[in-house]
């Protein structure tokens, strides 16, 4: 019984690899795009323009206030009504990138606001341009605050990528769902799926913790 199941599972090995590959590719693409977009939005938000600030803030709130599953359904089923034809992969990338960008935007804003105003004033007094000020003075100091939650956000992104299985993308979770129809041992199948995610996520969680400790220590804070 269990032997047959193991044999059958071994037969699903290529499928599982493809699923893991899909999860990694989805997460990686939206991670890169989301980080770029998130930093852009965060810098825009702290630029001093009230209108832009509140527009981005409203969008971020909309995304933070609705379940990711609903966002995927909205993108996948409604964008075509506006004449934009999407396959599931593109819809997944758009949804994940948007989600990541919104959360990263908030992290970047918090980081930029943590830089003392004296630093910005000094940069102004030294005659640095707006771009130089951001790139050479503010961002390097903000990164200390930004980095630990940023890595934590990447873990969330990888985990959230499992939700795109709902629109039929064969990622790791979907593979588990497919395999469990043939091999009726949910415990074993989804334990293995969990192991797949754990291998990808756990090193990142450890990295986030280490960064948090290092950055905290660099800040001269008391460690508990």
């Amino acid at each position, binding site marked *: 019984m269990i032997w047959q199941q193991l044999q059958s599972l071994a037969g699903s090995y290529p499928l599982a690899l493809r699923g893991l590959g899909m999860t990694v590719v989805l997460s990686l693409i939206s991670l890169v795009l989301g980080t770029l977009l998130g930093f852009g939005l965060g810098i825009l938000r702290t630029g001093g323009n009230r209108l832009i600030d509140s527009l981005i803030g409203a969008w971020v*709130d*909309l995304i*933070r*206030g*609705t*379940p*990711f*599953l*609903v*966002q995927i*359904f*909205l993108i996948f*089923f*409604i964008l075509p*009504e*506006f*004449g934009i034809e999407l396959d599931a992969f593109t819809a997944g990338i758009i949804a994940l990138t948007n989600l990541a960008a919104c959360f990263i935007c908030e992290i970047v804003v918090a980081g930029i606001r943590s830089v003392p105003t004296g630093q910005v004033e000094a940069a102004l007094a030294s005659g640095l341009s707006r771009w130089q000020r951001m790139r050479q003075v503010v961002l390097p100091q903000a990164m200390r605050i930004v980095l630990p939650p940023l890595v934590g956000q990447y*873990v969330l992104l*990888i*985990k*959230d*990528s*499992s*939700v795109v*299985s*709902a629109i039929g993308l064969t990622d*790791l*979770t979907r593979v*588990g*769902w497919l395999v*469990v129809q043939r091999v*009726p*041992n*949910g*415990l074993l*199948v*989804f*334990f293995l*799926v*969990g192991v797949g*995610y*754990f291998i990808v*996520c*756990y090193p990142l*969680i450890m990295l986030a913790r280490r960064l948090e400790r290092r950055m905290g220590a660099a800040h001269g804070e008391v460690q*508990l």
Partner: protein
Amino acid sequence: MLENFSFRTIVEYLPLFGQGLVTTVWLSALSFVGALIVGIVLCAMNLQRGWLFRAPAKAYIDAVRATPLLAQLYFLYFGLPRLGFVLPELVVGILALSLNSGAYIAEIIRAGILSIPRGQVEASVASGMTYVQRMRLVVLPQAFKVTIPPLLGQAIVLVKDSALLSLISVSELTRAGQLLASDRFMPAEGFLTIAAFYLLLYYGLKGLAGLSSRWLGTAGART
């Protein structure tokens, strides 16, 4: 474009959405209570000195945090019958949400307790307080204040996570949207409506979080 957007259909389906909203609210509330219990137990285990309780608690928390909720949900949904527990989807869903959020809540409570300065504990030891008095009169009241805002944040996450239960056909809010989308081929009406309902819940909880931190903040300043 959405020129055929039908408010009439939304109104027609409003009772279904209402039921879904009510289900989402009470199953989230129930899961949150379950998660608090799981979180407190895990946190108590995690704060022990010996590894006997600590190691399993740490392993559980790490395992939950490093895997997606959807995989955990399927693990229980397809796995429990295998162990002889044939439970309704709703119960499986509440169980999954409690077990998942519990791991995060354990960390929130731990951070709250560890945020109490050592001096406070030492002072209460010097005053001759017992362990229970120390916890009840000194540590927990202060830790409580620190944990309430992040706990409400976790409640927001839990409400949003409950949308995944629609994938094991629990008839909550997202499921109501899916029904409208598939019955009438009106995904825009279905999903935009439920998004609005979720936003309602989100802003409610967010307002509560703001209020609580302001209230707790002033309460702290007064003492």
